[in-house]
């Protein structure tokens, strides 16, 4: 199905309900779907499980969702930053659950969900605190930890362009988690600078095929 072209960021996230698991793209500001996160803030959905590389920074975006206690659990690789004060406060108060995952395992678990892989053995984290309680195996003398896929209800992603069939291209290191998150969510919601006609993206250069994209919202170019 060609994606729905939403009229606004608010329209794009309107179906996100309480208790949803939401993958949020971005690494630093690159690829961060800030307008969609703001719209998620506005739409009122709560009890969210959020998957992101970080746990919010300063007083914007994901940090505000955490500040307002809308996130019951966060799955991320790097929560503690100089400006992660809203997470820090919520965490110390025991008001947010943290699942800490090495960044590459986080990416691979998201990829596995999208790719229909059940569990997989990864060497990353073997012998560490983050493997405690997990099944391990020694293969050819090397230790591996069994990890599970991370499935989600929604993904919020920022891409550079979408065509009307939902094919996406990204820009530089803003690509980061977008392509894998699009595959792991029941519904991928994508903000783009520009929507172009089907056929205007070279099929060789499509990064996320439209099959993975459910909703697109065009939010114009440079912020």
């Amino acid at each position, binding site marked *: *199905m*060609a994606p729905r072209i939403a009229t606004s960021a608010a329209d794009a996230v309107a179906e996100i309900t309480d208790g949803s698991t939401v993958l949020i793209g971005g690494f630093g500001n690159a690829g961060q779907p800030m307008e969609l996160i703001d719209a998620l803030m506005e739409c009122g959905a709560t009890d969210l499980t959020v998957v992101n590389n970080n746990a919010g920074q300063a007083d914007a975006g994901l940090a505000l969702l955490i500040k307002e206690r809308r996130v019951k659990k966060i799955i991320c690789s790097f929560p503690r930053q100089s400006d992660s004060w809203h997470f820090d406060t919520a965490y110390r108060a025991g008001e947010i659950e943290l699942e800490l995952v090495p960044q590459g395992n986080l990416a691979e678990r998201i*990829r596995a*969900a*999208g*790719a*229909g*892989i059940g569990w997989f053995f990864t060497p990353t984290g073997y012998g560490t605190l983050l493997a405690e309680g997990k099944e391990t195996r020694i293969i050819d003398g090397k230790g591996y930890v069994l990890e599970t896929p991370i499935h989600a209800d929604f993904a919020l992603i920022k891409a550079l362009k979408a*065509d*009307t*069939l939902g*094919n996406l291209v990204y820009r530089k290191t803003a690509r980061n988690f977008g392509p894998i998150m699009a*595959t792991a969510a029941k519904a991928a919601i994508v903000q783009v600078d520009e929507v172009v*006609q*089907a*056929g205007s*993206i070279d*099929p*060789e250069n*499509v990064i996320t*095929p*439209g*099959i*993975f994209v459910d909703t697109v919202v065009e939010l114009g170019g440079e912020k």
Partner: protein
Amino acid sequence: MSAFSTTEAKLTRDEMAQLVAADIPAGAFVNLGIGQPTNVSNYLTKEQGVTLHTENGMLGMGPVATGEDIDEDLINAGKIPVTELPGASFFHHADSFAMMRGGHLDMCVLGAFQVSKDGDLANWHTGAEGAIPAVGGAMDLAIGAKATWVMMSLFTKAGESKLVEALSYPVTGLGCVSRIYTEVAVFELRDSKVFVRSTHGISFDQLAAKVPVELTKA
């Protein structure tokens, strides 16, 4: 679900393909298996906006290529030259099968040697002594898509039903088939029952007498 219907004549292969095509929901992402299912693409309408996937790495596959459009780098899973439609995309084999295995295709349509009443599929290997086995993407296709439909003749040349209680041929995938199109009937498999949606050139009772599984009129 559609109510039971019947027609006087058996379906031709083209009519079967036409019926399958008409049943595919608008906007679906579909993989058509090699052989008879490929014929379905001839009956998909532009208005349906169905996107075809080929497991050798493409979404947005167009019709078979002819004349100058033939390009040996642009083929389908049956290794037939095809064309690409606007909005197509190419990807590598791992991504292509991830797309399938991850449940992103709405449907695949496959041929079959046998289907069991529980939707188990046999279509890759006769199990015959001395046969060289080959599986290709059959097992991935069977269990990957959200829905797997089968197109087959209902009876073998020896007159035996290919819709069976339990497979006697080697399994391709367990519990994966939800619909079967044959020249004499269309079956829907759900809730551990086999519903007959339509019969063609045969009555429901005649059919029920020839098929060794319990049938229910849809």
